[in-house]
Protein backbone atom coordinates (compact mmCIF):
# COMPACT_ATOMS: atom_id res chain seq x y z
CA UNK A 1 0.00 0.00 0.00
CA UNK A 2 1.35 3.40 -0.92
CA UNK A 3 -0.06 4.79 2.33
CA UNK A 4 2.50 2.71 4.29
CA UNK A 5 5.29 4.57 2.47
CA UNK A 6 7.30 6.80 4.82
CA UNK A 7 8.06 9.37 2.12
CA UNK A 8 5.83 11.41 -0.16
CA UNK A 9 8.45 11.09 -2.88
CA UNK A 10 11.19 8.61 -2.01
CA UNK A 11 12.98 9.36 -5.27
CA UNK A 12 13.66 12.89 -4.05
CA UNK A 13 13.73 12.43 -0.30
CA UNK A 14 16.31 9.64 -0.24
CA UNK A 15 18.53 10.94 -3.01
CA UNK A 16 22.22 10.63 -2.13
CA UNK A 17 23.64 13.97 -0.91
CA UNK A 18 26.08 14.27 -3.79
CA UNK A 19 23.26 13.83 -6.32
CA UNK A 20 21.09 16.29 -4.41
CA UNK A 21 23.83 18.90 -4.75
CA UNK A 22 24.05 18.20 -8.47
CA UNK A 23 20.28 18.56 -8.78
CA UNK A 24 20.34 21.87 -6.92
CA UNK A 25 23.11 23.28 -9.05
CA UNK A 26 21.36 22.30 -12.29
CA UNK A 27 18.04 23.67 -11.06
CA UNK A 28 19.63 26.89 -9.87
CA UNK A 29 21.12 27.43 -13.32
CA UNK A 30 17.66 26.92 -14.82
CA UNK A 31 15.77 29.31 -12.51
CA UNK A 32 18.54 31.91 -12.69
CA UNK A 33 18.39 31.90 -16.49
CA UNK A 34 14.58 32.03 -16.35
CA UNK A 35 14.66 35.13 -14.14
CA UNK A 36 17.50 36.75 -16.08
CA UNK A 37 15.70 36.36 -19.38
CA UNK A 38 12.19 37.37 -18.27
CA UNK A 39 12.41 39.82 -15.36
CA UNK A 40 13.66 43.36 -15.93
CA UNK A 41 14.32 43.65 -12.21
CA UNK A 42 16.52 40.57 -12.05
CA UNK A 43 18.30 41.35 -15.32
CA UNK A 44 19.22 44.82 -14.05
CA UNK A 45 20.43 43.42 -10.71
CA UNK A 46 22.58 40.73 -12.27
CA UNK A 47 23.96 42.89 -15.07
CA UNK A 48 25.06 45.43 -12.47
CA UNK A 49 26.96 42.65 -10.69
CA UNK A 50 28.38 41.28 -13.94
CA UNK A 51 26.81 37.83 -13.51
CA UNK A 52 25.07 36.05 -16.37
CA UNK A 53 23.58 32.55 -16.61
CA UNK A 54 26.72 31.30 -18.37
CA UNK A 55 28.75 32.20 -15.28
CA UNK A 56 26.97 29.74 -12.98
CA UNK A 57 29.05 26.58 -12.95
CA UNK A 58 29.50 25.87 -9.25
CA UNK A 59 28.15 26.72 -5.79
CA UNK A 60 30.95 29.27 -5.48
CA UNK A 61 29.47 31.00 -8.54
CA UNK A 62 26.03 30.95 -6.92
CA UNK A 63 27.47 32.79 -3.93
CA UNK A 64 28.40 35.65 -6.28
CA UNK A 65 24.80 36.14 -7.37
CA UNK A 66 23.39 39.29 -5.68
CA UNK A 67 20.85 38.70 -2.94
CA UNK A 68 17.33 40.04 -3.18
CA UNK A 69 16.04 42.00 -0.18
CA UNK A 70 12.41 42.44 0.70
CA UNK A 71 12.80 46.22 0.33
CA UNK A 72 13.73 45.72 -3.34
CA UNK A 73 10.49 43.84 -3.93
CA UNK A 74 8.57 46.67 -2.28
CA UNK A 75 10.26 49.22 -4.54
CA UNK A 76 9.29 47.53 -7.79
CA UNK A 77 5.70 46.61 -7.08
CA UNK A 78 2.61 48.60 -8.07
CA UNK A 79 4.44 49.42 -11.29
CA UNK A 80 3.79 47.76 -14.65
CA UNK A 81 2.67 45.11 -14.98
CA UNK A 82 0.38 46.26 -12.17
CA UNK A 83 0.40 45.35 -9.31
CA UNK A 84 3.50 43.13 -9.30
CA UNK A 85 6.03 45.21 -11.18
CA UNK A 86 9.15 44.23 -13.00
CA UNK A 87 9.91 40.89 -11.36
CA UNK A 88 6.94 39.23 -13.04
CA UNK A 89 8.18 36.57 -15.45
CA UNK A 90 4.93 35.51 -17.10
CA UNK A 91 2.16 37.34 -18.96
CA UNK A 92 -0.30 38.82 -16.48
CA UNK A 93 -3.11 36.64 -17.82
CA UNK A 94 -1.23 33.55 -16.63
CA UNK A 95 -1.32 34.72 -13.02
CA UNK A 96 -4.05 32.86 -11.16
CA UNK A 97 -3.22 33.63 -7.52
CA UNK A 98 -2.63 36.83 -5.58
CA UNK A 99 -1.27 36.77 -2.05
CA UNK A 100 0.58 39.35 0.02
CA UNK A 101 2.87 39.33 3.00
CA UNK A 102 1.48 40.30 6.37
CA UNK A 103 3.37 43.58 6.45
CA UNK A 104 4.79 43.06 9.93
CA UNK A 105 8.08 44.61 8.80
CA UNK A 106 6.66 47.31 6.55
CA UNK A 107 4.72 47.69 3.32
CA UNK A 108 3.27 44.28 2.30
CA UNK A 109 4.88 42.56 -0.68
CA UNK A 110 2.56 41.31 -3.41
CA UNK A 111 3.16 37.83 -4.74
CA UNK A 112 1.96 36.45 -8.07
CA UNK A 113 1.60 32.75 -8.79
CA UNK A 114 0.47 30.87 -11.88
CA UNK A 115 -1.64 27.75 -11.55
CA UNK A 116 1.57 25.73 -11.96
CA UNK A 117 3.11 27.68 -9.08
CA UNK A 118 0.04 27.00 -7.02
CA UNK A 119 0.41 23.27 -7.76
CA UNK A 120 4.01 23.69 -6.65
CA UNK A 121 2.89 25.25 -3.36
CA UNK A 122 0.57 22.30 -2.73
CA UNK A 123 3.27 19.83 -3.77
CA UNK A 124 5.75 21.33 -1.30
CA UNK A 125 3.11 21.15 1.43
CA UNK A 126 2.36 17.54 0.49
CA UNK A 127 5.95 16.67 1.47
CA UNK A 128 5.28 18.35 4.83
CA UNK A 129 1.97 16.72 5.61
CA UNK A 130 2.91 13.24 4.41
CA UNK A 131 6.07 13.31 6.54
CA UNK A 132 3.91 14.20 9.57
CA UNK A 133 1.62 11.23 9.06
CA UNK A 134 -1.30 12.81 7.20
CA UNK A 135 -3.08 10.14 5.16
CA UNK A 136 -6.32 9.83 3.17
CA UNK A 137 -8.12 8.59 6.29
CA UNK A 138 -7.57 11.94 8.04
CA UNK A 139 -10.24 14.59 8.46
CA UNK A 140 -8.31 17.85 8.62
CA UNK A 141 -9.79 20.93 10.24
CA UNK A 142 -8.30 24.25 9.21
CA UNK A 143 -9.21 27.04 11.67
CA UNK A 144 -7.86 29.80 9.46
CA UNK A 145 -9.49 32.95 8.12
CA UNK A 146 -8.94 32.28 4.42
CA UNK A 147 -7.78 35.61 3.08
CA UNK A 148 -5.03 37.43 1.21
CA UNK A 149 -2.29 35.87 3.35
CA UNK A 150 -0.96 32.58 2.05
CA UNK A 151 -0.73 30.92 5.52
CA UNK A 152 -2.65 27.65 5.43
CA UNK A 153 -4.12 27.94 1.93
CA UNK A 154 -1.48 25.63 0.47
CA UNK A 155 -1.85 23.29 3.44
CA UNK A 156 -5.52 23.01 2.51
CA UNK A 157 -4.73 22.18 -1.12
CA UNK A 158 -1.99 19.74 -0.12
CA UNK A 159 -4.26 17.89 2.27
CA UNK A 160 -6.76 17.53 -0.58
CA UNK A 161 -3.97 16.32 -2.86
CA UNK A 162 -2.94 13.71 -0.33
CA UNK A 163 -6.54 12.55 -0.19
CA UNK A 164 -7.56 13.86 3.23
CA UNK A 165 -11.01 15.21 3.87
CA UNK A 166 -10.60 18.94 4.50
CA UNK A 167 -12.92 21.02 6.65
CA UNK A 168 -12.38 24.77 6.08
CA UNK A 169 -13.07 26.45 9.41
CA UNK A 170 -12.89 29.91 7.86
CA UNK A 171 -15.37 32.42 9.24
CA UNK A 172 -16.32 30.46 12.35
CA UNK A 173 -15.36 31.95 15.69
CA UNK A 174 -13.21 29.98 18.12
CA UNK A 175 -16.02 28.27 20.08
CA UNK A 176 -17.78 27.31 16.83
CA UNK A 177 -14.55 25.86 15.50
CA UNK A 178 -14.08 23.78 18.63
CA UNK A 179 -17.64 22.49 18.42
CA UNK A 180 -17.16 21.62 14.74
CA UNK A 181 -13.97 19.69 15.53
CA UNK A 182 -15.91 17.84 18.20
CA UNK A 183 -18.94 17.17 16.00
CA UNK A 184 -16.97 15.97 12.98
CA UNK A 185 -14.34 14.05 14.97
CA UNK A 186 -11.53 15.79 13.09
CA UNK A 187 -8.15 14.05 13.41
CA UNK A 188 -5.72 16.79 12.40
CA UNK A 189 -5.41 20.55 12.42
CA UNK A 190 -3.19 23.36 11.15
CA UNK A 191 -2.74 26.67 12.99
CA UNK A 192 -0.22 29.11 14.42
CA UNK A 193 1.16 28.08 17.85
CA UNK A 194 -0.51 31.14 19.35
CA UNK A 195 -3.88 29.98 18.10
CA UNK A 196 -3.34 26.33 19.03
CA UNK A 197 -2.87 27.45 22.63
CA UNK A 198 -5.64 30.05 22.37
CA UNK A 199 -8.15 27.47 21.15
CA UNK A 200 -7.22 25.14 24.01
CA UNK A 201 -7.64 28.01 26.46
CA UNK A 202 -11.08 28.90 25.08
CA UNK A 203 -12.19 25.26 25.13
CA UNK A 204 -11.27 24.84 28.78
CA UNK A 205 -12.05 28.27 30.22
CA UNK A 206 -15.18 29.22 28.28
CA UNK A 207 -16.70 25.93 27.13
CA UNK A 208 -15.69 23.39 29.74
CA UNK A 209 -14.29 21.14 27.01
CA UNK A 210 -10.97 19.37 27.41
CA UNK A 211 -9.23 19.71 24.00
CA UNK A 212 -7.31 16.53 24.74
CA UNK A 213 -10.62 14.67 24.45
CA UNK A 214 -11.41 15.92 20.94
CA UNK A 215 -9.45 13.28 19.03
CA UNK A 216 -7.02 15.57 17.18
CA UNK A 217 -3.85 13.48 16.92
CA UNK A 218 -1.58 15.79 14.94
CA UNK A 219 -1.23 19.53 14.56
CA UNK A 220 0.90 21.33 12.00
CA UNK A 221 2.12 24.74 13.09
CA UNK A 222 3.35 27.57 10.92
CA UNK A 223 3.45 31.34 10.77
CA UNK A 224 5.54 32.04 13.86
CA UNK A 225 8.00 30.30 16.20
CA UNK A 226 6.52 28.02 18.84
CA UNK A 227 6.48 24.46 17.56
CA UNK A 228 10.28 24.62 17.62
CA UNK A 229 10.40 25.99 21.18
CA UNK A 230 10.45 22.94 23.44
CA UNK A 231 8.37 24.42 26.27
CA UNK A 232 5.71 25.77 23.90
CA UNK A 233 5.55 22.54 21.95
CA UNK A 234 5.12 20.60 25.19
CA UNK A 235 2.24 22.85 26.27
CA UNK A 236 0.48 22.39 22.94
CA UNK A 237 0.99 18.62 22.90
CA UNK A 238 -0.23 18.27 26.47
CA UNK A 239 -3.28 20.47 25.90
CA UNK A 240 -4.43 18.61 22.78
CA UNK A 241 -2.96 15.16 23.47
CA UNK A 242 -1.54 15.39 19.95
CA UNK A 243 1.79 15.45 18.19
CA UNK A 244 2.72 18.99 17.21
CA UNK A 245 4.92 19.54 14.18
CA UNK A 246 6.80 22.58 13.02
CA UNK A 247 7.01 24.02 9.53
CA UNK A 248 8.64 27.20 8.23
CA UNK A 249 7.78 28.94 4.99
CA UNK A 250 6.91 32.38 3.68
CA UNK A 251 4.91 34.11 0.98
CA UNK A 252 7.99 35.06 -1.01
CA UNK A 253 9.81 31.75 -0.59
CA UNK A 254 7.23 28.97 -0.48
CA UNK A 255 7.01 26.07 1.96
CA UNK A 256 10.63 25.12 2.22
CA UNK A 257 10.94 23.02 5.38
CA UNK A 258 9.27 20.52 7.64
CA UNK A 259 9.56 18.61 10.84
CA UNK A 260 8.84 14.93 10.15
CA UNK A 261 6.94 12.57 12.46
CA UNK A 262 10.21 11.48 14.12
CA UNK A 263 10.46 14.97 15.64
CA UNK A 264 14.24 15.18 15.33
CA UNK A 265 14.46 18.57 17.03
CA UNK A 266 14.73 20.48 13.81
CA UNK A 267 13.44 21.03 10.31
CA UNK A 268 14.25 19.17 7.11
CA UNK A 269 14.97 21.49 4.21
CA UNK A 270 13.21 20.26 1.06
CA UNK A 271 16.43 20.28 -0.89
CA UNK A 272 14.90 18.93 -4.08
CA UNK A 273 12.82 22.09 -4.41
CA UNK A 274 14.89 24.70 -2.56
CA UNK A 275 18.47 25.78 -2.16
CA UNK A 276 19.12 27.02 1.36
CA UNK A 277 22.43 28.75 2.02
CA UNK A 278 23.49 29.97 5.44
CA UNK A 279 25.42 33.21 5.43
CA UNK A 280 27.63 34.37 8.27
CA UNK A 281 26.02 37.61 9.44
CA UNK A 282 29.33 39.42 9.84
CA UNK A 283 31.66 38.08 7.16
CA UNK A 284 29.08 37.13 4.52
CA UNK A 285 30.83 33.77 4.12
CA UNK A 286 28.61 30.78 3.28
CA UNK A 287 28.54 28.35 6.22
CA UNK A 288 28.61 24.69 5.24
CA UNK A 289 29.48 23.09 8.54
CA UNK A 290 27.02 22.34 11.34
CA UNK A 291 26.99 24.30 14.59
CA UNK A 292 27.40 27.84 13.26
CA UNK A 293 24.45 30.14 13.06
CA UNK A 294 23.87 32.49 10.19
CA UNK A 295 21.01 33.92 8.17
CA UNK A 296 19.19 32.07 5.46
CA UNK A 297 19.55 32.93 1.80
CA UNK A 298 16.97 30.91 -0.09
CA UNK A 299 16.20 30.04 -3.69
CA UNK A 300 12.93 28.42 -4.72
CA UNK A 301 14.24 26.28 -7.54
CA UNK A 302 11.00 25.83 -9.47
CA UNK A 303 8.77 28.83 -8.84
CA UNK A 304 8.19 30.76 -12.02
CA UNK A 305 5.78 33.73 -11.99
CA UNK A 306 7.72 35.80 -9.48
CA UNK A 307 10.96 33.94 -8.82
CA UNK A 308 12.67 33.74 -5.47
CA UNK A 309 16.39 33.72 -6.25
CA UNK A 310 18.83 34.16 -3.38
CA UNK A 311 16.25 35.90 -1.23
CA UNK A 312 17.60 37.29 2.03
CA UNK A 313 14.94 35.82 4.30
CA UNK A 314 16.65 36.93 7.53
CA UNK A 315 15.76 33.68 9.28
CA UNK A 316 18.55 32.66 11.64
CA UNK A 317 19.41 28.98 11.22
CA UNK A 318 22.20 26.41 11.54
CA UNK A 319 22.84 22.98 10.04
CA UNK A 320 22.47 19.96 12.30
CA UNK A 321 25.39 17.54 12.43
CA UNK A 322 23.15 14.55 13.05
CA UNK A 323 20.97 12.83 10.48
CA UNK A 324 17.29 12.19 11.15
CA UNK A 325 16.19 8.63 11.97
CA UNK A 326 13.53 8.94 9.25
CA UNK A 327 16.18 8.24 6.59
CA UNK A 328 15.57 11.36 4.53
CA UNK A 329 18.73 12.76 3.04
CA UNK A 330 17.34 16.31 3.15
CA UNK A 331 19.52 18.08 5.72
CA UNK A 332 18.20 19.16 9.08
CA UNK A 333 18.27 22.63 10.61
CA UNK A 334 19.02 22.27 14.28
CA UNK A 335 16.14 23.58 16.37
CA UNK A 336 14.34 24.93 13.29
CA UNK A 337 14.39 28.67 12.77
CA UNK A 338 16.09 30.22 15.80
CA UNK A 339 14.70 33.67 15.12
CA UNK A 340 14.86 36.49 12.64
CA UNK A 341 17.98 38.51 12.16
CA UNK A 342 15.72 41.59 12.50
CA UNK A 343 14.38 40.44 15.88
CA UNK A 344 17.66 39.60 17.51
CA UNK A 345 18.52 42.79 19.28
CA UNK A 346 21.11 44.06 21.71
CA UNK A 347 19.87 44.87 25.19
CA UNK A 348 22.42 46.20 27.67
CA UNK A 349 25.02 45.06 25.16
CA UNK A 350 23.79 41.45 25.21
CA UNK A 351 22.30 39.77 22.12
CA UNK A 352 18.71 38.80 22.90
CA UNK A 353 16.51 36.44 20.86
CA UNK A 354 12.83 36.76 21.93
CA UNK A 355 12.34 33.02 21.47
CA UNK A 356 14.63 32.41 24.46
CA UNK A 357 12.22 34.32 26.70
CA UNK A 358 9.29 32.28 25.45
CA UNK A 359 11.18 29.06 26.17
CA UNK A 360 11.53 30.14 29.81
CA UNK A 361 8.02 31.54 30.33
CA UNK A 362 6.29 28.50 28.83
CA UNK A 363 8.50 26.20 30.87
CA UNK A 364 7.43 27.63 34.25
CA UNK A 365 4.52 25.86 35.87
CA UNK A 366 1.83 28.21 37.16
CA UNK A 367 2.18 30.74 34.34
CA UNK A 368 -0.34 31.15 31.52
CA UNK A 369 0.62 30.92 27.85
CA UNK A 370 0.52 34.66 27.19
CA UNK A 371 3.31 37.07 27.95
CA UNK A 372 4.63 40.42 26.75
CA UNK A 373 8.17 41.78 26.69
CA UNK A 374 8.79 45.51 26.65
CA UNK A 375 12.24 46.95 26.15
CA UNK A 376 12.75 50.65 26.77
CA UNK A 377 15.41 53.04 27.95
CA UNK A 378 15.73 55.03 31.15
CA UNK A 379 18.32 57.66 30.38
CA UNK A 380 21.08 55.68 28.69
CA UNK A 381 20.21 52.38 30.32
CA UNK A 382 18.15 49.66 28.63
CA UNK A 383 15.39 48.04 30.68
CA UNK A 384 13.29 44.94 30.07
CA UNK A 385 9.87 44.38 31.51
CA UNK A 386 8.20 40.97 31.28
CA UNK A 387 4.44 40.78 31.75
CA UNK A 388 3.06 37.35 32.61
CA UNK A 389 -0.22 35.87 33.83
CA UNK A 390 -0.63 33.62 36.84
CA UNK A 391 -2.88 30.65 36.15
CA UNK A 392 -5.96 30.25 38.34
CA UNK A 393 -4.81 28.44 41.47
CA UNK A 394 -1.28 29.84 41.31
CA UNK A 395 -2.14 33.33 42.62
CA UNK A 396 -0.45 32.70 45.97
CA UNK A 397 2.76 31.44 44.42
CA UNK A 398 3.78 34.76 42.87
CA UNK A 399 7.01 35.18 44.86
CA UNK A 400 8.23 31.66 44.20
CA UNK A 401 7.36 31.88 40.49
CA UNK A 402 9.01 35.29 40.18
CA UNK A 403 12.19 33.98 41.73
CA UNK A 404 12.29 30.92 39.44
CA UNK A 405 11.47 33.03 36.40
CA UNK A 406 14.23 35.56 37.11
CA UNK A 407 16.80 32.82 37.71
CA UNK A 408 15.99 30.98 34.52
CA UNK A 409 15.85 34.14 32.44
CA UNK A 410 19.26 35.10 33.79
CA UNK A 411 20.66 31.70 32.82
CA UNK A 412 19.04 31.63 29.36
CA UNK A 413 19.50 35.25 28.31
CA UNK A 414 22.13 36.77 30.62
CA UNK A 415 19.79 39.63 31.44
CA UNK A 416 17.78 40.88 34.41
CA UNK A 417 14.04 41.59 34.08
CA UNK A 418 11.32 43.49 35.91
CA UNK A 419 8.44 41.05 36.25
CA UNK A 420 4.83 42.21 36.28
CA UNK A 421 2.09 39.73 37.15
CA UNK A 422 -1.40 39.99 35.72
CA UNK A 423 -4.60 38.17 36.46
CA UNK A 424 -5.31 35.31 34.10
CA UNK A 425 -6.95 36.57 30.89
CA UNK A 426 -5.71 40.18 31.15
CA UNK A 427 -2.94 40.13 28.55
CA UNK A 428 -3.86 40.42 24.84
CA UNK A 429 -4.86 37.28 22.94
CA UNK A 430 -3.93 36.80 19.30
CA UNK A 431 -5.48 34.70 16.55
CA UNK A 432 -2.70 34.68 13.99
CA UNK A 433 0.77 36.16 14.50
CA UNK A 434 1.36 37.41 18.00
CA UNK A 435 3.17 40.69 18.74
CA UNK A 436 4.62 39.95 22.15
CA UNK A 437 7.98 41.70 21.85
CA UNK A 438 7.90 45.48 21.92
CA UNK A 439 11.10 47.45 21.58
CA UNK A 440 10.18 51.03 22.48
CA UNK A 441 13.76 52.20 21.99
CA UNK A 442 13.30 51.96 18.22
CA UNK A 443 10.21 54.19 18.32
CA UNK A 444 12.08 56.86 20.22
CA UNK A 445 14.94 56.71 17.75
CA UNK A 446 12.40 57.06 14.89
Amino acid at each position, binding site marked *: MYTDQEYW*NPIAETLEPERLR*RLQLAKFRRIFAWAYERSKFHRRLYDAAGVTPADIRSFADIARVPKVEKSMMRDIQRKDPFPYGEALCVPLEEVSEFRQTSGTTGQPVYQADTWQDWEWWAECWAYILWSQGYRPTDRVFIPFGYNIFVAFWAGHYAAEKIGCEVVPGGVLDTPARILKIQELKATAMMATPTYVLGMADTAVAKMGIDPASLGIDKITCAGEPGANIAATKKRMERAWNAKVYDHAGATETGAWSYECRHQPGGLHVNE*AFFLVEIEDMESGEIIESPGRRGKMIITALDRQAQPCVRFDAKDVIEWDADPCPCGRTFRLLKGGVAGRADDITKVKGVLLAPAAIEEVVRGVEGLGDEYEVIVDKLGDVDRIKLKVELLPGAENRGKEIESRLKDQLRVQTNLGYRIEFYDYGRLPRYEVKAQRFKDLRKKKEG
Partner: protein
Amino acid sequence: MSTSAAEIREKIQAVMAAAEDLARAGAAIPAVVRNTARIRASIKMLELGVCDIVQMTGDGAFDP
Protein backbone atom coordinates in the same frame (compact mmCIF):
# COMPACT_ATOMS: atom_id res chain seq x y z
CA MET B 1 6.39 -5.12 -8.75
CA SER B 2 8.84 -2.27 -8.98
CA THR B 3 9.54 0.21 -11.71
CA SER B 4 12.70 2.24 -12.00
CA ALA B 5 12.66 6.02 -11.82
CA ALA B 6 13.86 6.08 -15.43
CA GLU B 7 10.81 4.08 -16.52
CA ILE B 8 8.49 6.30 -14.50
CA ARG B 9 10.09 9.29 -16.16
CA GLU B 10 9.29 7.90 -19.63
CA LYS B 11 5.66 7.44 -18.68
CA ILE B 12 5.45 10.98 -17.29
CA GLN B 13 6.87 12.34 -20.52
CA ALA B 14 4.32 10.36 -22.51
CA VAL B 15 1.44 11.69 -20.41
CA MET B 16 2.71 15.26 -20.78
CA ALA B 17 2.97 14.80 -24.55
CA ALA B 18 -0.60 13.46 -24.64
CA ALA B 19 -1.85 16.44 -22.57
CA GLU B 20 -0.13 18.85 -24.94
CA ASP B 21 -1.67 17.07 -27.94
CA LEU B 22 -5.07 17.34 -26.30
CA ALA B 23 -4.61 21.06 -25.68
CA ARG B 24 -3.72 21.59 -29.32
CA ALA B 25 -6.62 19.47 -30.57
CA GLY B 26 -9.12 21.35 -28.42
CA ALA B 27 -7.57 24.79 -28.84
CA ALA B 28 -10.96 26.36 -29.68
CA ILE B 29 -12.78 24.79 -26.74
CA PRO B 30 -12.34 26.65 -23.45
CA ALA B 31 -13.14 23.56 -21.38
CA VAL B 32 -10.37 21.61 -23.08
CA VAL B 33 -7.82 24.42 -22.95
CA ARG B 34 -8.32 25.26 -19.28
CA ASN B 35 -8.66 21.70 -18.04
CA THR B 36 -5.54 20.58 -19.87
CA ALA B 37 -3.69 23.61 -18.45
CA ARG B 38 -4.47 22.25 -15.00
CA ILE B 39 -3.57 18.71 -16.02
CA ARG B 40 -0.22 19.90 -17.33
CA ALA B 41 0.48 21.78 -14.09
CA SER B 42 -0.08 18.54 -12.18
CA ILE B 43 2.13 16.56 -14.52
CA LYS B 44 4.75 19.28 -14.14
CA MET B 45 4.99 18.37 -10.45
CA LEU B 46 5.95 14.85 -11.51
CA GLU B 47 8.53 16.28 -13.89
CA LEU B 48 10.00 18.29 -11.01
CA GLY B 49 9.94 15.36 -8.57
CA VAL B 50 11.04 12.57 -10.89
CA CYS B 51 12.14 13.57 -14.40
CA ASP B 52 14.45 16.37 -13.24
CA ILE B 53 16.16 14.03 -10.82
CA VAL B 54 16.74 11.34 -13.41
CA GLN B 55 17.85 13.82 -16.03
CA MET B 56 20.00 16.09 -13.87
CA THR B 57 21.63 13.64 -11.52
CA GLY B 58 22.31 10.38 -13.25
CA ASP B 59 20.94 7.06 -14.30
CA GLY B 60 17.62 6.89 -12.44
CA ALA B 61 18.48 3.66 -10.71
CA PHE B 62 16.06 4.26 -7.85
CA ASP B 63 13.85 1.27 -7.16
CA PRO B 64 10.75 2.21 -5.18
